[in-house]
């Protein structure tokens, strides 16, 4: 267990240090906007807002309502591509 934790920590560190994490983030964001995921999510947010009222909606509301849907709505292609990249990184840097 320790080993896993240590492994995870070291991988995370490497991700950040090499800048791969940011690159992956940007890649994901671009892909999601491109495939329309962002607009779908915005529509979801609108519904939450109309439900809760424009004046009183909080970040928590949105997060709680929207994130699970968001995770589910990610297209498979995007998911696969991202996983591939992570795997590549791991195979390069895993000791």
């Amino acid at each position: 267990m320790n080993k896993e934790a240590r492994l995870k920590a070291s991988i995370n560190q490497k991700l950040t240090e090499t800048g791969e994490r940011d690159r992956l983030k940007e890649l994901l964001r671009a892909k999601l906007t491109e495939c329309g995921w962002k607009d779908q999510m915005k529509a979801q947010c609108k519904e939450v807002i109309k439900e809760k009222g424009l004046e009183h909606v909080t970040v928590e509301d949105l997060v709680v309502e929207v994130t699970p849907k968001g995770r589910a709505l990610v297209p498979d292609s995007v998911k696969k591509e991202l996983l591939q990249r992570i795997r590549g990184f791991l195979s390069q840097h895993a000791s």
Partner: protein
Amino acid sequence: MKMEEKPLSGPDNTRLEALMQDIYSELVEDACLGLCFEVHRAVKQGYFFLDETDQDSIKEFEIVDQPGVDIFGQVFNQWKNKECECPNCKRLIAASRFAPHLEKCLGMGRNSSRIANRRLASNNNISKSESDQEDNDDLNDNDWSYGAEKKSKKRKSDKNQNSPRRSKSLKHKNGELGTSISSDPYKQYNYNAGISYESLAPNEVRSLLTTQCGVISEHTKKMCTRSHRCPQHTDDQRRAIRLFLLGPSVPTLPDVDGDGFDVPDSQAVLSRLQWEDSPDISPADSASSKASGNHSDSRRPKKKKKPAVAAVALSMSGGGGGVNLMGVSGAVSQSTISLSTKKKKPKAAAAAAPSVSTEARQVRY
């Protein structure tokens, strides 16, 4: 370890796969959170719903697709035949002519000042030539005081140079003629920069032609008031004009060689020539001998044209001579000579005979 893209082998595999999934879900959650923050901010700042229009507005601004009407529903030629009332003159003007009419009516805009100047100049032509003698005499009396001289100078330039009165002023006021000639450049600032040769006496024509280019423009039928070296007209044109206006016996431009020697001039003219040459030439000697040589040539035709004007010529040489020289010599010498002539001008007017004759000696080589 081997570098492979495919699932890794061994017990590490599951661990790494799990790690992979962890990293992935972390990234996705990050994206979702980012979106939530963005939306929340947009809601709080009030720009979240900006891309949506309400139904009423949509109906109001719908694209129109009827014939004879543009997409906004406006008719094309609606105001073509309408008439508008001018706020200034209260007349009804056609819509397409309204803007130019306003320009003239209100006295603003680019062309209105030009037209007004033109009208003024032509009015002056007509009215000034009929002005009272008394008025002019009053002006004459004010000659010797400095301030009044300024005024009279101005009036001279305002007064039409073409009027028959001018011959009178030529005889009366020696000192002033120089100023009147030098105020010729004033004419250039008029919009109406030209003289109509028909209204001039032959004296005046001759005098004008000696100082100015004089080529008659086809459009306006007026003589060009620029110097002899004016770039718009060639020497041939100038010669032709002189021929036309003064008759074939009179030689043309001052820069024509050899003409001066054929002139059957009296001694008086020659002596006058001496007087004239000196104030201009002596400083010019240092500038260029060619200029002074030509200068003496140029003097003679000029003198022929105005035999009556003796003392006047002295002062004229200061102003007019400089102008002639410009037609003759090159640019460099021109500037130096004109400078020197300008310096000489006041001296020339008051020049004593002895100084003149001594300088005259320098001229004749």
